[in-house]
């Protein structure tokens, strides 16, 4: 679903073998790294912040770079807009290589193509909220009335309508970061870089901002590169996640790929601490509904389908695949025995959820309904089902299997 790297669309961001080293002779450090020296061996010469990073980000994707402090993630994001130009390798933004352009060209690329949101907001305290939001447009030389209009639109988008005349110091942390977000949105660039944008906010506000970002991204379809040290955040937001450690990208994949198939012990250790119920969504774990019953069919058809598919419950849909409810084996058997024709009286309610719902919110409903949960889209059309066993499987941490033994083998003969 989200494996966009293989699509034919030209990538919004394309990074090829990028290195960034700090020190007296960064080129030498990169050369030694390529010859196989480790980061620690080169410590005396300088700091290898990013080592051999390669990835593509598709247009409209949220690409999350996740790593602890010192893993090089902040440097990596700064190579994307040339604030920290890579020592070696190429960075292409919408097909344009930004590693060998003049400062003037680089500035124009930043103005037209890339906006950025900062960890500590980086608002200009001497400017009003409106003037801050309009900064990118001002730099671009857009007329005062136009930029004020666009800045106000952006402020409305982030829920700060009417705050244009306030100063940043008059706002709370969450509101300030909304201004930071509005400033980036007002720039109307296709690419947005977000450097730990929500890390400085308290958890409640952070969740609110994450929701808002997802919502905005759905509306506007921007390409977002998001940096975080919080894996829960990474998995909530990211279509794909790049895990970084000691300057290297150790794994790139979707939430599921990383959870189910960690590339190494480091990643495995990380995901142990992940609360799966709060990162996995219904859409990610649902199974295709193999057997569904048309609303016009009778108990006999239901009985046959159940036997064929070895199941005790069936989803019932109408002709346009809108979910109507569920029928259970016992009811169907009784109806067949009674010789009933239609499904009237057999149809039970089925709990349905949207694909974006987190598993944590599903557990309660799943425990009450033997048939599990249905996943439907906004229009109520059936997309998939989550049987209870699937839900349990999704919650299972594959790395912790040693804690449970299989008793059967040890039972006396």
């Amino acid at each position, binding site marked *: 679903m989200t494996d966009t790297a293989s699509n034919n669309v030209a990538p919004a961001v394309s990074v090829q073998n990028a290195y960034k080293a700090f020190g007296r002779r960064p080129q030498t450090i990169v050369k030694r790294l390529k010859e196989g020296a480790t980061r620690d061996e080169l410590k005396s010469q300088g700091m290898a912040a990013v080592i051999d990073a390669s990835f593509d980000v598709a247009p409209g994707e949220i690409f999350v770079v996740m790593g602890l402090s010192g893993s090089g993630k902040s440097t990596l994001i700064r190579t994307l807009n040339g*604030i920290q130009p890579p020592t070696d390798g190429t960075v292409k933004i919408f097909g344009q290589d930004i590693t060998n352009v003049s400062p003037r060209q680089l500035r124009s*690329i930043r*103005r*037209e193509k890339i906006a950025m949101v900062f960890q500590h907001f980086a608002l200009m305290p001497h400017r*009003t909220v409106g003037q801050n939001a309009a900064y990118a447009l001002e*730099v671009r030389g857009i007329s005062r009335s136009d930029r004020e*209009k666009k800045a106000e639109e952006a402020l409305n988008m982030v829920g700060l309508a*009417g705050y244009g*005349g306030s100063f940043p110091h008059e706002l709370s942390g969450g509101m300030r970061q909304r201004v930071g977000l509005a*400033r980036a949105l007002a720039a109307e660039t296709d690419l947005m870089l977000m450097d730990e944008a929500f890390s400085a906010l308290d958890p409640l506000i952070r969740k609110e901002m994450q929701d808002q970002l997802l919502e905005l991204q759905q509306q506007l379809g921007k390409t977002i590169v998001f940096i975080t040290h919080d894996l829960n955040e990474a998995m909530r937001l990211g279509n794909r996640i790049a895990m970084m450690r000691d300057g290297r990208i150790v794994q790139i994949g979707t939430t599921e790929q990383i959870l189910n198939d960690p590339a190494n012990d480091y990643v495995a250790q990380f995901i142990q601490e992940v609360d799966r119920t709060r990162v996995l969504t219904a859409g990610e774990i649902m199974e295709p509904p193999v057997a569904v019953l048309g609303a016009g069919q009778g108990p006999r058809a239901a009985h046959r389908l159940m036997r064929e598919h070895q199941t005790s419950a069936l989803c019932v849909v109408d002709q346009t695949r809108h979910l109507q409810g569920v029928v259970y084996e016992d009811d169907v058997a009784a109806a067949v025995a009674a010789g009933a024709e239609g499904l009237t009286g057999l149809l039970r309610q089925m709990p349905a959820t949207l694909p974006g719902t987190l598993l944590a919110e599903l557990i309660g409903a799943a425990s009450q309904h033997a048939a599990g949960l249905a996943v439907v889209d906004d229009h109520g059309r059936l997309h998939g089902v989550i049987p209870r066993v699937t839900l349990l499987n999704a919650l299972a941490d594959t790395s912790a299997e040693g804690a449970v033994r299989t008793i059967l083998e040890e039972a006396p003969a």
Partner: protein
Amino acid sequence: MIRADETESTIVPRIEVGERLEAGFEWFEDTFDSAINWVGSTVAYISDGLAEILAIPDALILTVILAAIAWLVRNWKLALGTVGLMLFIITVDQWNEALETLALVAVAAAIALIIAIPLGVLAAKSQIASRIIRPVMDLMQTMPALVWLIPALAMFSLGMTAGIFATLIFALPPGVRFTELAIRQVDAEVVEAGHAFGSTPAQILFRVQLPLAAKTIMAGVNQVIMLALSMAVFAGFVGAGGLGTEVVRAISQLNLALGFDAGLSVVMLAIYLDRVTAGIGGGEGVLAKLLRRRKSAPVQTEETAEDKAATGSPTT
């Protein structure tokens, strides 16, 4: 007494550093003679002109004007204080001398700032410039202030210009230092944000760094003016006029009464200049509020939001 070719030690030879510097200075004076003359006459023209303008209104009227300035940059309390300070100077009959000193300080401080702020910006932007500028500033500041009177005298002869030159050299360093520090202290993330949105170096400097550094730079301006005032008194030795000349006269006549009158007048002037420049930096006065004219904090309705966007806020 040590002769020219001897030192206290039998090993260390005598090197005539002072003589060589003097020779260098003389070469400089000869080579740029016409430039020095031009600068001297221009500065003299400006400072004399300023002193004359200050002398036009009656002492009390000027007092009221100075009090009004104090009110604009700070508050009515300072305005009231200003009246007290000025009345003191008038009553000890040092008013005209104080005006001359004020003119000298104003011209010297203005020139110092015109040189110091760009130098400070340069030092903040370039590590190399910073390494060159720093020891020069150290030299200018730590050299006993009176020594600067000698080249001043040699170049511009007795008078206010020589006084301004010596004052300028002595008062310049804090202006450079504070400006460099102020710009370096600007939050790196904010500057980075400026870069990230594609600002040119000039946009970074004028729209981000200087506005955010303004407060610290004003502290530097305050220091420059205070040092200029203290040096202006020494400048009395080279006939710069004003309160300095009165102090010098008091010393030569051993006239303690005159010494106190002139000295306390300097103190009054210092208090006024310090509070006023600090007030500009603090940005709490009526003037700052006028400049920052804007509607007060959050209002929820759509209409006011639009209204606000339309009027905008004129602080840019």
